[in-house]
């Protein structure tokens, strides 16, 4: 009797869970919402929300739901959040993740659970190369790509020597590796600082005494605000022009303002890109949230649209993972970056632009598009990925 009851109950549970799973698409968004990285996580959240709202709250004709988690920029916290999402919340997709070290920590648990992940920021070389998986896509970039563009640009400009600085973690090392791959001049020094080091005065003194022709850095989000303010306070700006990736963008420019005027940054996207999808996106984003979106909002917006395209392609059959993966690979969305294709390792092939920090008509500082440095640029690790 008891056994029958149990069987009936469990059958009931099974039925209710499948019926729930069939009419709601759950997307888990893990990002950094607190601390100095919080400015970037807010972009992730708002970009994803805007996409879902514009889709009428639906992902591929099913009800869409986004579950958020704050990884506090800590790999262990991110991994815990991911495990809870795939095991308890049973999300169908995972997106977000700013920091590459957090992504590396939660990558396995997510991929092994069978969920499909569409990353919206950090792209460590491990995941693009040997660790690549059919279940992982990057809607953003592989870390080396933007610094490769800057390395090429600075070589073309015949800048003879450069001082490199980045925080000592997965992405910091990727960024400088990418830069060195394309830069042909002299590297005066390559300095790694502690990831959460707040004060750079001692390193800034080193730059002045090393006398490079230019300085190239990667300090994302709040780290960048601290770094560039201190750079300007130390009076280095006029003697050592500053070049960067993921540092001087719309998350940091409101706080650093004039200190960044005239500097250069390379990247895959800026609010200044003129394609119709982007113009509409930036307008809608500013109207809704009241601030200028940065790269993270753009990639998060694209990620949710990619997920939507996948669920549409399989007519809402969330068990058809193969079909959804094939659909994302097609990249049939109007990406705000313009042309988007996926490489064999599921990382994007996209343009990398040179941006100049200028003062806009309304007095704020923006990244103005100057030129395309690397067109339809794939990453350097795709050949190490066994997927075809």
């Amino acid at each position, binding site marked *: 009797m008891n056994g029958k009851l149990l069987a009936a109950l469990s059958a009931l549970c099974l039925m209710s869970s499948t019926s729930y799973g069939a009419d709601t698409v759950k997307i888990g968004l893990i990002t950094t919402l607190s601390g100095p990285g919080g400015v970037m996580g807010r972009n992730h959240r708002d970009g994803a929300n805007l996409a879902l709202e514009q889709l009428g709250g639906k992902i591929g004709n099913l009800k869409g739901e986004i579950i958020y988690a704050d990884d506090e920029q800590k790999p262990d916290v991110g991994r815990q959040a991911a495990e809870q999402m795939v095991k308890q919340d049973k999300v169908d997709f995972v997106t977000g993740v700013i920091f590459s070290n957090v992504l590396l920590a939660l990558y396995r648990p997510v991929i092994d659970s069978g969920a499909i992940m569409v990353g919206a920021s950090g792209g460590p070389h491990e995941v693009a190369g040997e660790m690549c998986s059919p279940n992982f896509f990057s809607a953003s970039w592989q870390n080396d790509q933007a610094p490769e563009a800057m390395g090429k640009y600075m070589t073309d400009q015949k800048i003879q020597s450069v001082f490199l600085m980045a925080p000592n973690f997965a992405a910091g090392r990727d960024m400088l590796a990418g830069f060195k791959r394309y830069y042909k001049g002299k590297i005066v020094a390559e300095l790694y600082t502690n990831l959460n080091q707040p004060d750079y005065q001692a390193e800034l003194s080193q730059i*002045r005494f090393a006398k490079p022709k230019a300085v190239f850095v990667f300090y994302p989000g709040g780290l960048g605000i601290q770094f560039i303010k201190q750079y300007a306070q130390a009076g280095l700006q006029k003697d050592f022009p500053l070049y960067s990736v993921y540092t001087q963008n719309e998350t940091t420019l409101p706080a650093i303002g004039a200190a960044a005027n005239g500097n250069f940054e390379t990247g895959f996207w800026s609010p200044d890109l003129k394609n119709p999808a982007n113009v509409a996106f930036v307008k809608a984003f500013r109207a809704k949230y009241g601030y200028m979106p940065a790269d993270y909002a753009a990639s998060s917006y694209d990620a949710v649209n990619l997920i939507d395209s996948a669920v549409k392609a399989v007519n809402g059959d969330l068990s058809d993972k193969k079909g959804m993966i094939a659909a994302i690979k097609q990249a049939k969305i109007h990406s705000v970056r313009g042309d988007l294709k996926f490489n064999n390792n599921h990382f994007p092939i996209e343009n990398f632009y040179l941006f100049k920090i200028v003062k806009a008509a309304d007095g704020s500082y923006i990244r103005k598009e100057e030129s395309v440095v690397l067109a339809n640029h794939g990453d350097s690790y795709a050949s190490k990925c066994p997927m075809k």
Partner: protein
Amino acid sequence: MNINIFFLLEQLLNGVQFGVMLFLISAGLTLVFGIMNLINLAHGVLYMLGAYICASVIQASGSFLVGVAAAIVGSLAAGIVIELVTFRPLYRRTHLDQVLVTFGLTLFFNELVRIIWGPTALYAAVPAALSGQIDILPGAPYPTYRLVIIGTGILAAVFLYALVSYTRIGMLIRAGASNRVMVEALGVNIKLLYTFIFGLGAALAALAGALAGPILAIESGMGNGMLILALVVIVIGGIGSIRGAFIASILVGTVDTLGRTMLRPLFATFLSQATADQAGPAIASMLIYLLMAFILFFRPQGLFPPRIR
């Protein structure tokens, strides 16, 4: 890397600047620990509150000085309330109870500032008049604001020295550090004295927080890292000694800064560049703890322990 004397001098200056910040935080901690015999893990909270209040008031009033003043007054008030409400019952309890309560306070306040100011970090601007550089060494302009920090820290140290050595309150503080029971037996209101000392420490930590605001990100938990360094400082300096805290702060500040900048090039002279790149930063980050172990080996009471207890 070419190391010349001016480079060394500038790094020393950077170390001193870091050191005076540490001193402002450690001064209160060492007094509270030394005189009240209370382990206060919540001291970093007062530094954080100082930074937050200062940044908010600067935004509202537009004046840096008003911001700093508000930070000091605000944290002083918070410190006195904390002392009256949570510490008074704690003085007679064991150190373990004190650690638990003050650690709980840290969690409470870190969460409170998230609720009030939000989870994302705040940033304050350097006042325009101090945003330039001054040529103190030939060819090495130094940020004016950091010189102001050094000056303020040294002024605070002089003020504390004068207060402790030449005033009646200072005499009571010294007496309290030597023998609490006797001071109370002589009719001094020791509770009032404790509240005063705690408020003084809170105000100094808030001053450090307010000064750090324009350089660093103001965020929940920003005091935690500083508290650990401050504990190292007071252990090296000798618990309860203002003089010890000052000297240990400057020592820790310069050793940390020089370690960060010099170890890598130094190792590169006799190791391969790759090994030096690995070993330099790794050893630099533990250098001050090595320093602490080294000093405690020879002087277990720290450099300047107060006489008798």
